[in-house]
């Protein structure tokens, strides 16, 4: 049986749900080896959290260079492992870090690359949703080792517990991968809410909030949801840019997306229209976002959301 690499994905010091999603896709192709890159002496602790999904092996590579040099160092080590172990495919999470690793690995191993796959089949065909989710594309890498980045939250993860065989490996990191130096790293500021691209539910606010996101946030918290924002809201400085959903921001594909006071310009829809269910709250009955809503409430979000928040809290208590 062939061997498939996944780059283990971590949220803080624990394997994220994305790791299990990558493993689920990878197991269709072959036996999954989750590769863990960690600071010297930290590999075993990280590897111990890689315990969900169909994972046969965990390969630990430790080096102080990963924290010091970031993407180029990890990519160099991964490329060298691929050259020595010849996996049938490499699956990596589709976020900024993962895509840049994939980019450098594709160059270093002379391999084709596909980004933002929402599914990968046993024959290594990747499914992508392009042009803001309006078109489904199936494509395949035709040269080298297929390097495929997979969008978090797209594949239903097999969350059965795993007891993988753990192995340590060393990987060479070349001088060209050590040219940039990281002097400090701050983890993202967590407001106790789930990460936008990984959340099952996203509640977003737009121009209609007039800068007051309290109703949106309270509603999001009642659902355990992440909070997003339209570009109008982030450009106005009402909410951080890191929460922007849309063509120039994050692309999300949750089970449920709730758009509050967002008109639904094509650029915003490009970032959310592959959500499984869409709910819209907007005062303007002509807002184009109603065209893609499974359920729409024509009304003021400052009336509708608090009532909905109270309704959900009542059901939970």
């Amino acid at each position, binding site marked *: 049986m062939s061997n498939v690499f996944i780059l283990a994905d971590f949220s803080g010091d624990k394997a994220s749900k994305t790791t299990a999603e990558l493993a689920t896709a990878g197991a269709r192709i072959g036996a999954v080896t989750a590769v863990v890159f960690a600071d010297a002496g930290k590999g075993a602790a990280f590897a111990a959290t890689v315990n969900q999904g169909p994972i046969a092996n965990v390969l630990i590579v430790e080096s102080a260079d990963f924290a010091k040099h970031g993407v180029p160092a990890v*990519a160099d080590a991964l490329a060298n492992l691929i050259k020595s172990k010849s996996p049938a495919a490499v699956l990596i999470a589709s*976020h*900024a*870090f993962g*895509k*840049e690793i*994939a*980019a*450098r690995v*594709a*160059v*270093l191993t002379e*391999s084709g*690359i*596909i*980004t*933002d796959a929402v599914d990968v089949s046993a024959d290594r065909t990747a499914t992508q949703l*392009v042009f803001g989710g*309006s*078109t*489904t*594309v*199936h*494509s*395949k*890498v*035709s*040269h080298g080792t297929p390097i495929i980045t997979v969008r978090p939250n797209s594949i239903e993860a097999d969350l059965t517990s795993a007891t993988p065989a753990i192995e340590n490996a060393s990987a060479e990191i070349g001088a060209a991968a050590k*040219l*940039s130096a*990281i002097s400090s*790293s701050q*983890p*993202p500021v967590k407001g106790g809410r789930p990460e*936008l691209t990984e959340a099952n539910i996203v509640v977003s606010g737009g121009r209609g909030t007039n800068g007051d996101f309290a109703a949106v946030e309270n509603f999001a918290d009642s659902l355990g949801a992440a909070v997003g924002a339209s570009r109008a809201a982030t450009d106005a400085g009402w909410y951080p*840019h*890191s929460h922007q959903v849309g*063509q*120039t921001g994050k*692309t999300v594909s949750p*089970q*449920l997306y709730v758009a509050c006071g967002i008109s639904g310009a094509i650029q915003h829809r490009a970032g959310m*229209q592959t959500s499984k269910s869409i*709910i819209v709250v907007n005062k303007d009955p002509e807002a184009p976002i109603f065209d*893609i*809503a*499974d*359920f729409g*409430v024509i*009304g*003021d979000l400052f*009336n*509708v*959301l*608090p009532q*909905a928040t*109270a*309704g*959900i809290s009542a*059901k939970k208590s």
Partner: protein
Amino acid sequence: MKIAVCVKQVPDSWAEKKMVNGLLDRVNVDAVLNDLDEYAVEEALRIAEAHGGNEEGGANTVTVISMGPERATEAVRKALSMGANDAILITDTALAGADALATSSVLAKVIGDGGYDIVICGTESTDARMSVVPAMISARLGWGQLTFASKVTVDPAGKVSITRVTEAGVDEISAAFPVVISVVEKINEPRYPSFKGIMAAKKKTIEQRDLATVGVSSQSAWSQVNDATPRPPRAAGVKVTDEGSGGEALVNFLVEKKLI
């Protein structure tokens, strides 16, 4: 300093995009300078202006580099009208359908031959949205990678420091010249070309190079599209008007669909 900015002409993000024979139809669609590349042009100009300017006889030059069909001169001209000095457009029929690997290979060759100190890119194009070309150029040239920058500080003696902002957090990174930078959109507010800038851009040189002049052979794409199917548009569902119980109706919908 010699600064290069990589830009791409893309279909207008308002336009309807279609696939023809597995490739994006770039002919029958309005084309513009990739939004996110405007931030790269702006940052290049600001760096030049902060360290002696890029006017005639100034200490710096800003060169726009683009790969695309001949028509991409329109997007390149926009970058020139913002204030870049000159431009190189790599255009060759053999490059139609080039993937990110082929694109990065051509751009890296031109950049490497140009003797630049700093190359600046946008983080992604609004058509392909891969965010891979800056990292690929860095890997191909063996230059420092300073990507997803929300702040760039240049020491003209030969060092660049950036603040990198991604979902993984905030990093402070630095590297010695030559470097490849990509900038995120919150880094600056791109200037509108002035009338003077637009007039001046008409006289600026856009040097066209084909693959033979660049000195790389054409490389076919290393991934192929099997099929592309438009997805059925989402049908609009139930719409209710809030007459005092809109929130309750919303909760009922969530319960009905088992979303809570």
